[in-house]
């Protein structure tokens, strides 16, 4: 997925113990494998089937997706602030291509 630009919206600085929202969007057609092209041939399935969010190495949220997820998958989810570090997001497409994004996070006592 070389041309795909994943995006994240999350605070830069949070208070320790605070539960904050993370919002992400990635551009992807999420081809279901149910549609046919003009010639009547089935367009093969190609979706992002997995999304993961790791906070300082530990997984805090993930989504295992099927065909019913809309194109350009969007997520809003929550993370409880513990230590300064980073959020690492990754998306895996059918076929194994992976897009990822890392955002630093500062936690204040």
């Amino acid at each position, binding site marked *: 997925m070389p041309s795909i630009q994943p995006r994240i919206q999350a605070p830069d600085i949070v208070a320790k113990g605070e539960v904050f929202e993370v919002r992400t969007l990635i551009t992807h057609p999420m081809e279901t494998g*149910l549609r046919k092209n003009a010639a009547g041939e089935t367009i093969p399935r190609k979706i992002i089937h997995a999304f993961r969010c790791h906070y300082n190495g530990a997984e805090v*949220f993930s989504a295992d997706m099927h065909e*019913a997820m*809309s194109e350009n998958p969007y997520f*809003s989810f*929550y*993370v409880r602030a513990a230590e300064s570090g980073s959020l690492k997001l990754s998306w895996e497409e059918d076929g194994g291509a992976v897009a990822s994004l890392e955002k630093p996070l500062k936690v204040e006592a």
Partner: protein
Amino acid sequence: MSRARVVSAIPRRSILRSAPIASFALVTGAFLQTAHADAIDEAALIRQFVGGTATPSSRVHVQMPKIFSNGYSVPLTLFVESPMTEADYVRTIHVLAPKNPIIPVANFSFSPQSGQAKLSTRIRLAQTQDVLAIAEMNDGTLLLGRGSTQVDVDGCK
């Protein structure tokens, strides 16, 4: 001729043209068959796709718009009331759309570090239906919540 009389004349004429009793019986039969096919064994779907039996619970909230004409991108918010501690948290929320051609939608997994078991996303719906959310707690308990949206455009084509 007044407008009201024209309007009332059309249905009467069309009924006369298309009302042989046999065809009426056929239409009724087709309707009954459809109604029967619409009855969904939700417990069997949950056993098949999640494994186990889910108890309906007011702790599982499924928020969707009442009416959303475009089935390609229906907003969905899931929230499960939980303290989200090491001892008591929501491990996974399984989402099923029983009237979609492919019934499982997604599984969303959390950890105590999530802080709250809540997420928003967008899904495809083929038709108006109840979307089921089955929350799997860390002790293995399954809790069931539901939401529904009226959809006019099949989002799975």
